[in-house]
Structure formats: C-alpha cells, structure tokens
C-alpha cells in the first residue's frame, strides 16, 4: 500500500517548563496504513493518551511532525484544525463523552450538522447509521437511559457520521463488561476491514490484541520491544517480565502485576473447589493469557515504525 494515512515522525511532547517539565512522549515514530488496526498498550502514565491526542490534532507536539496524507497537521494554525477533526478523525472515549442534554439521535446528528448538513439530512443520516448499529429503538433516549455498550455504540456512530479516515479510541472497552467489550471490538474491526478506515486504539485490555493488526508497547513515552511483555493471568494487565512478580505453576512461569494477583492466582489453583464467583473469570483470563503467550512466540513485530 502506497498511500500513508497517518505518519507520526519523531514526535515529542513536553508539559511544563524547567524543573517541573514532564516529557510525556519522547521521539515516537509510527505510520498507520489505511484499514489497519493499531493497538497501543503500556502502563498508566506512559504517554498513550498524550500520543493519541496529538495524532487526533487535539494537542500540538513540542517536536517532530504528524502528517495526514502528506499534510503536516502538527504545523497547521488553530483555525484550520476544527475542519480536520470534524472530517478526518472519529474519536471514541472510555467515558463515551456523549452530550447529556441531547438524545441519541441528536448526539450523532449534531456532528453531521457541524460538517454542514442541514437539520433534516443530518438526522436522516444519523438515523441510518444508528439503525445499522442496532440502536433504532433508542433514537429518542437520553444517554443516561442507555447501557454502557449502547452508549459506546452511539459514540461509534458519532465518530463515523462524517466518514473519517481515522478512528482514534482511548480505552474504548474499559468501562464495559467483557461481553459488551467484545462486541465493541468486533465492531471496530469491521469498521477497519469493511470500510477501510484506520483504527488506532489505546488500551490496557489484552483482548483487543485479538483484533489488532499490530500491537505497540509504549513506556516512559517511547515504544519498547514488545517481546518482553507478559500478561497477568489474574487481572489481565500487560506486565513487563523483568519487573513482574513471577509465579511458577506446573513447570510454567507466569508473570503477575502485583503480589495480590500472584497470591490470587496461586490460591485459585490450590483451592479449585472454592466457588467464589471470581474463579471462572480468572480461568478464562488465564486461558486467554496462555493463548496470547503462544501467539507472541511467533510475533517478531517490535519495530514501531
């Protein structure tokens, strides 16, 4: 594929000055291809959100450049940015960020109106899209009356309404239970694969690896080799092997994020008759972790660009 959708080159972001300055992103490079799903993982505070904000033209980098189909959006004046955000990007958030005073339909239609569609046309377009996403019966509901999964589907409809090139999602499944989270992931995958849009997802959620074409690990503001990563069998968090608390079981080594998880993991295996309701969950996580461990063995992709 020749056309680059989004090209991030040596991007740096510093917050504040002097002594108190925080270097949130340090010289990150990344190219996102059309139709590609990129997952960015990493510990809390590693700069994932900062990077995503810069990719979405919500935040100006301190250094480096971000190009969208050849246009350096990181250089554009503030007055040019609203149009780019409106037509090129679709955002999806952990908190959904729906406008609480507007109905489902209005939440989506208002974004089409911002792009110039008249009231009626905007509502029709939003209705069609929401119907495709299975929300036909919810059009007149206020966000507060929706379940988490429904809210996120509304947010996805809103992100898609102006035919964006790129979808940027920050922890899109973090506030959803695992079944609904899965649904949202499948939806994101079909958006990428059937509609040819690029999707960049920032997440802690290991399950998103299943749908990602590429997984990148951000730490201390820079991409790190992903091969050294493992998944906590209890909480599902990605952990760096060197820093993890390890647990030996049946000749296998597991990596846990904390002592608590390690004890729960070992305890859960020991007292396998205990019905505390969390166990099956723990087990399915474990199964997932084993699966991804196997896959990782064949993954060599550690080059971030």
């Amino acid at each position, binding site marked *: 594929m020749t056309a680059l959708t989004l090209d991030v080159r040596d991007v740096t972001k510093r917050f504040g000055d002097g002594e108190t300055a925080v270097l949130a992103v340090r010289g990150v490079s990344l190219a996102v291809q059309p139709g590609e799903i990129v997952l960015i993982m990493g510990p809390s505070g590693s700069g994932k959100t900062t990077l995503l904000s810069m990719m979405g033209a919500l935040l100006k980098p301190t250094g480096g450049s971000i190009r969208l189909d050849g246009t350096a959006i990181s250089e554009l004046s503030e007055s040019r940015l609203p149009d780019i*955000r409106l037509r090129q990007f679709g955002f999806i958030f952990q908190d959904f960020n729906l406008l609480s005073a507007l109905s489902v339909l209005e939440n989506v239609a208002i974004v089409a109106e*911002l792009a110039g569609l008249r009231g009626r046309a905007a509502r029709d377009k939003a209705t069609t899209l929401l119907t495709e996403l299975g929300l036909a019966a919810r059009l007149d509901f206020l966000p507060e009356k929706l379940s988490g999964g429904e809210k996120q589907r509304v947010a996805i409809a809103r992100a898609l309404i102006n035919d964006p090139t790129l979808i940027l999602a920050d922890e899109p499944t973090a506030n959803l239970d695992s079944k609904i989270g899965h649904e949202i992931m499948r939806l994101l995958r079909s958006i990428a694969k059937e509609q040819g849009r690029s999707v960049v997802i920032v997440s802690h959620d290991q399950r998103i690896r299943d749908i990602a074409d590429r997984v990148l690990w951000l730490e201390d503001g820079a991409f790190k080799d992903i091969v050294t990563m493992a998944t906590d069998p209890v909480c599902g968090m990605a952990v760096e092997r060197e820093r993890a608390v390890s647990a030996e079981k049946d000749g296998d080594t597991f990596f846990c994020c904390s002592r608590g998880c390690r004890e729960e993991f070992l305890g859960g295996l020991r007292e396998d008759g205990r019905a505390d309701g969390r166990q099956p969950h723990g087990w399915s996580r474990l199964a997932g972790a084993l699966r991804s461990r196997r896959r990782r063995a064949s993954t060599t992709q550690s080059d971030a660009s």
Partner: protein
Amino acid sequence: MSATLLLARRNLARNRVRLLASVGGVALALSLTLALDAIYAGVANQLTTYIDRAGADVWVAQGGVRNLHMVASTLPESVVDQVKAVDGVATVTPILEATDTVAAGDERAVAYVIGLPADASMGGPWEVVEGRGQVGPGEIVVDLAFARKAGVRIGDSVGVLGGEARIVGLSRGTASLVNSVAFVSIDDFRAMRGGAPVVSFVLVRVAPGASPEAVAADIERLVAGVTAQSRSTFVAQERRIVTDMSADVISIMSVIGFVVALAVVALTVHVATLARRREFGVLKALGARNRVLYRIVLVQAVLSVAVGYAIGLAFTGLLGFAVGRTDLNLELAVTADSLAKVGLFAAAIAGFAAILPIRQVAGVDPAVVFRRGAPA
C-alpha cells in the same frame, strides 16, 4: 444551526434552579422599569386627559404659558373675539381654570375646576353618565367616582371655590390618582374670583381642512400677548411635566434593574458555561469551532433574557389589571417606547452576559475529552 440551538435550550432547561434564577432575576429587574414607566405614563395620560378630550384643536393661553397644570394663565376677555377673527378658526370657547377643592361633608378632594360658558361647544365633560353636562348658575358637574366616594348624588350641594353648587351631572373619566375635574358655570367662577373680565384659555376648533399648527401660528402672529399651541403640542408639553419629574426616578431604577439583571444573567450564563466545560471540550474535539460554542452561550443568554422579558411584561400587565380593579384612580400604561427601551435593555443584558464566558469558551482545551471525568 438547529442542533446547537437545541443544545442551548436543553442545557438551559436541564438546570431548573439556574434557569429560575436567571429568568426570575431578569423578569424582576425588567418589570421594575416597565412598571415604573407604565405608572408614570398612566399618570401622564391622566394629566392630559382633559386636553385630549376637551375637543379643542388649538389652545390659546397667556403669552409664555405652555401648560395647563402648575401654572396660571390669565387673558383679557377681549382676546376671545380677536382669536375668533383669525382665518381658519371655526369656533371658540373661553374657559376659566383653577386648582381647588370640592367638598362634600367630610370628603374634600382636589379638583381642577373648569368654568364653562352656557353655550360652550368645547371644554365640557365628555362622558356624562347621569344628569347633564351643561352648567348654569349655581350648578356643578362632578366626577362619578368622587360622588360615590363622597356619598353625594344629583341635587346635592358641594362646596367649591369658596361657595356652594348643586350637582346636576356626573361624569366619567374625569378622575386621576390625585384629583378630579369639576365643571361650573364661568359666570359663577368669575364672580367668586372678584369678577374681573378675564379668561384662562381660549379653546379653538379649526375650520375643516385647516391645520391646527398653522392656525396656532397665525393666532400667535395676529393676537398680541398669547401663546397658541395645537392640541398635540400642548399634550406633549404637558406630558413633559411628568417625564421631567419622573425621569430621574425612572433612570435610577432602570440602572439598578439593569445592573441586577445583568449580574444575574451574567453569573448564571457563566456558571452554566463552567458546568459544561467538558461538553464544550467534547464539541471542540468533534470539530466545533469556537464560534459555534459562542453561539450556544449567546443563545442561552438570549433565551433566559427573552423569557424573563416576557414574564416581566406579563407581570406588569397583571399589575396594571390588579391596580385597575382597586379604587385607586391609577392607570398603568405600557407604552411602545417603554417596551422598546426595556427590550433594548434586555438585548444589552444578553449581549454583555454572553461576552463574559467568551474567554472561558475559547480557553477550553479539546484534549480534556481524554481525561477522566464524569461519564456522560
């Protein structure tokens, strides 16, 4: 843009307390000005009722006298014929006028007493509800409301101008908050005042097709020592007594009302904007320009002020209605001028209130959308 309008309306409606505060504040402040204006306009109307209803097109007074009230006009009787001789004058009626009291039993009320000739074609009572409007020697026509209050009726005697007169007619529309109009014979009036051959005003009806202004100018030119004004000029002149008197009071109250309303609206719009910072950030991240956000803020301000204005107007109307039902002879007149003035106030309030949050809105960082906040 309909969706942003909708958003402004919904945001406003969602916080009832805030809406109530801003709308109530505006209503209160604006109705303060509206009601004061209406009261003074009502008083001015009452003050000019006699001039309006006397039936004269031109009023001729002593040179330099431009009002009916607060001044005295004295003209030699010979002026009457001189005025009548001026081209364009159809008929004339001389009257005597003085502020006095009419007394019946314990009831004593201030009245403008008008002395009318027996053949008066103008200047008499315009709505006689009982008895007759012509007054001969020893007779008087008094206001119906006064008669009711004093407990007198046709045939009873009242004290006026230091003598007595018998009631022959009751008139309506001849009372105001502070006084009423009573009609006596010009001969009685003159006799009680020492008999000098003088009149207060000469009322003129102009010939068909003649302009009152032109006739008034001719009278002033041809008759020495008089001031002649068309009815409309005279009315305007008379109203100025009230407006001059009330201007300061109304100005002060209007300024207070304006400041109070502005403060309330500005504060509520400001707080509403603050409370919606995150949603403004979301809109920005979705691609809304600052001016879209300004419009939302402005629409919120305009809506609260418009609703407040409407409520203030309704309140003033209601107050007028309530006052009309009391036996106070007070009339509230909401004039177009007053509506326009207060409307302008309201627009200015909305405008100023919306300016304040502009910096706030411009400063909203679209990157807030990724920070954890209250889930929508």
